[in-house]
């Protein structure tokens, strides 16, 4: 716990223990009901302690509460991951008023635990719309990358807070199986590489989103602004490549060779 100031570290540790997290021997990690808490240089993370089986990292989480996403580890296993910028947590701890920092830490952790199960912390309400509008300019939901332009959406409702940007239109028709795998690899790469942002493939297309449903009030502004910046970065990083790959009018023989990462799964199915 050396990465936080000593007082902040104590409060975070107290909050972790109060919620049932147990420190792992010889490490800074804590564990609770299959969820591991880690600290990194600028982030704190909660991650499923065991690999998830039969999970498609690009399906199933879009629209669910909390910024959980699936990532593929170096060993090829899939895990569920929740990432929190340490600056946001530091802000909560640093703004300790009347000794409430510990409970604020608890709220952050409880947010992660509740949304891991698909729920929302009891009594949570999103910030007022006017307050959110003050956190961003209207133009910040529009991203133009050369010939591609995307309009993001603020998802705001009684039990919803999030940001979503479309990446692709529909399920690209007319693409070969190999090319679909290339496209999938590009989307997976974006989800694995960049913090917080999850990518979802649906019948209506591919979307990038960060869901902040359940975010504690004390860190809502900080998390919202960070999320918007993160999404803009990822969309700009991803959208040209994805749109190019998904455009059936563009022909490239190299794209008709299956990507290496997808090949082993197919081979396992071959008798």
């Amino acid at each position, binding site marked *: 716990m050396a990465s936080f100031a000593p007082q902040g570290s104590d409060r975070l540790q107290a909050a972790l223990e109060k919620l049932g997290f147990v420190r792992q021997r010889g490490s800074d990690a804590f564990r609770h009901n299959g969820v591991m808490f880690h600290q990194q240089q600028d982030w704190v993370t909660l991650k499923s302690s065991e690999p998830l089986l039969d999970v498609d990292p690009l399906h199933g989480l879009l629209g669910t509460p909390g910024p959980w996403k699936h990532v593929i580890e170096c060993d090829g296993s899939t895990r569920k991951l929740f990432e929190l910028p340490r600056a946001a947590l530091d802000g909560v701890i640093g703004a300790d008023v009347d000794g409430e920092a510990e409970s604020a830490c608890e709220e952050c952790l409880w947010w992660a635990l509740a949304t891991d199960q698909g729920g929302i912390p009891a009594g949570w309400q999103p910030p007022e719309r006017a307050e959110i509008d003050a956190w961003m300019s209207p133009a910040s939901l529009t991203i133009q990358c050369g010939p591609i332009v995307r309009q993001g959406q603020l998802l705001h409702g009684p039990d919803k807070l999030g940001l979503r940007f479309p990446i692709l239109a*529909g399920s690209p028709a007319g693409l070969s199986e190999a090319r679909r795998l290339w496209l999938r690899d590009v989307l997976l790469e974006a989800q694995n590489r960049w913090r917080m942002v999850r990518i979802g493939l649906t019948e209506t*297309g591919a979307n990038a989103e960060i869901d902040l449903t359940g975010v504690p009030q004390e860190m809502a502004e900080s998390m919202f602004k960070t999320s918007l910046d993160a999404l803009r970065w990822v969309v700009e990083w991803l959208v040209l490549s994805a749109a190019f790959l998904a455009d059936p009018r563009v022909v490239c023989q190299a794209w008709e060779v299956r990507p290496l990462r997808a090949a082993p799964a197919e081979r396992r199915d071959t008798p």
Partner: protein
Amino acid sequence: MTDRTGAVLAPPSTGDVMSLECGDVTGTHSVVASDVQKTLPAGAVAQALAARMSLPQNVPWALRDESTSAFLEDDKPIGEQLATGARVTVTPKTHLGASM
């Protein structure tokens, strides 16, 4: 490997999309932009269409509705200013203002 005859400008992820026929002021370039999100500001669409037609990106562009000759308002959603299938011209924003 490249394609310049058409444009998939934005995705119809929520079904609320439109198509546009676009040309530049010289009539040299034209593209059909399908699946343009109606919520996009017209100014952003103009810049993207200009890029699609390989027009310089260091110039501010506007859209002019060919049926009325009216310039679209940059900040307003394009779906509130045009019907699907509309023909527009990508026009550089120029003026004759003297320097102060």
